[in-house]
């Protein structure tokens, strides 16, 4: 714990007394005293099925080894009516620097609401997904330090899930984990959702071996995977825990649930 945030006056730099201020400028690159980012921890994940999309995230917010709060949602409804986003059909999850996440959410939400106001119809998920990419890329040189996942239903009513990097590269996927425990959850999802490293029993050995074909999973199975992913991540990552926030998007709307996770 020793090296984390040593708040003492910097070694070799000016202390609290002005007379210690160095007289000559050190050579090399100039470093700013203010770093505008921080990591608020936490993890999110999304899985899309044939008729639904599930997004999930824990509600812990951290800075360093401190827990800021046990209830800071990372999943936001986008669009719909009013400040409560009534009737929204798109969900955004953001993990990374929470202040940027909040700013990103607010920009996207305003855009989607303005779209409906101007065009008289709700924005499609694919359009919203591309717009989100543009918002992120527009700040390419001072990025929103977040990993975003956008979920909804596409024009055919199938589950749609888009994942982003902080500068706007995006892709439609079946499943994606992001945030602090992404490296713990993503391999589990590869195996259980896309059936990676699974083979048809008795199909032979070596090159004969046939990979098990991935099919969209039923909703109860996916809910089970999400819970398993998070209970496991909580065991092995200190920045994940407290509560599991889930949003299930179906043709009937968005259902939001909170279930307890370990608080240690």
């Amino acid at each position, binding site marked *: 714990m020793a090296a*984390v945030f*040593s708040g*003492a006056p*910097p070694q070799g730099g000016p202390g609290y007394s002005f007379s210690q201020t*160095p007289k000559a400028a050190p050579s090399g690159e100039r470093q*700013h005293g203010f770093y505008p980012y*921080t990591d608020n921890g936490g993890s999110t994940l999304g899985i899309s099925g044939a008729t639904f999309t599930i997004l999930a995230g824990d509600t812990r917010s951290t800075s360093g080894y401190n827990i800021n709060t*046990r209830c800071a949602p990372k999943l936001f409804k986008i669009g719909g009516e009013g400040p409560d986003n009534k009737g929204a059909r798109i969900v955004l999850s953001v993990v990374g620097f929470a*202040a940027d996440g909040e700013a990103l959410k607010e920009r996207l939400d305003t855009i989607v609401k303005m779209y409906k106001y101007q065009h008289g119809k709700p924005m499609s998920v694919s359009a919203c997904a591309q717009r989100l990419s543009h918002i992120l890329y527009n700040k390419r040189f001072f990025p929103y330090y977040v990993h975003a996942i956008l979920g909804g239903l596409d024009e055919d009513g199938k589950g749609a899930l888009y994942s982003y990097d902080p500068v706007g590269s995006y892709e439609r996927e079946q499943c994606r984990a992001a945030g602090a425990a992404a490296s713990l959850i993503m391999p589990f999802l590869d195996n259980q959702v896309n059936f990676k490293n699974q083979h048809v029993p008795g199909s032979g050995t070596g090159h004969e071996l046939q990979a098990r074909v991935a099919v969209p999973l039923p909703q109860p199975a996916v809910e089970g995977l999400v819970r398993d992913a998070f209970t496991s991540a909580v065991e092995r990552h200190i920045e994940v825990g407290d509560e599991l926030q889930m949003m299930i998007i179906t043709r009937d709307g968005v259902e939001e649930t909170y279930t307890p996770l370990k608080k240690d």
Partner: protein
Amino acid sequence: MNHLPQAWGRPRDDVYGAYDPSHFQNAAPNQHTQSPIVTGTSVVAAKFKDGVVIAADNLASYGSLARFTDVKRLRKFNDEVVVGFGGDVSDMQYLDRLLNSLDIRENYSNTESSLNAKNLHTYLSKVMYKRRSDFNPLWNHLLIAGLDGDAKPFLASADLLGTTFSSPTLATGFGAHLAQPIMRRTIPDEAAVQNVSKDDAISLVKECMKVLFYRDARSMDKYSIAIITKAGVELTEDERLENQSWAFAESIRGYGTQVN
């Protein structure tokens, strides 16, 4: 959050290497705050069933020097909001003037209701986020305590990066390490707030101020405390720590002049 405001917002030494202070003597006009100078330490606050208690001591430190001993770090905004300031004192005074002008503007406009704690928190967090995005941060960690639009207790924080969060108990700086665990013991979650009376919350916060005075070297035994309920704001700015017991100091070994 680290308990030393000097470290707030800085790149972590263990990740980015030691801090390069070369910009300090660049006598260019229009310098941005690169580090806080005169600082206030922790602010602690806790919700109870009809309101919020918030406290901060009256000390403004210049590094390790206890420079100003009568600085009020709790600011009453109106009859339902109090803001507590940790970090740089000049930035606090700037925010104070900003809130003054906001209050005047609001009172001249013909809206029926005044700004509540939730409104003020949104406003302040946007100010903080804008300033950090301009690389010209206000070096503070704020707690906003009061009542929300439904007259329910409201407590939330905003810091120099624009990060915001809300919790039944909050503490900035050193208090995040020392006071938060004590307060979470009685108020672990939002549901527990209903079982906490005004007197419970006041004694809890006062206990935290005492622990902080014992262990935080940049703290003082004179502090301000405010209680916000539907009845209004009770703000006391010259409270003194009571029932101090330094008996524990006898048992501390390894520092000072003892030989064993």
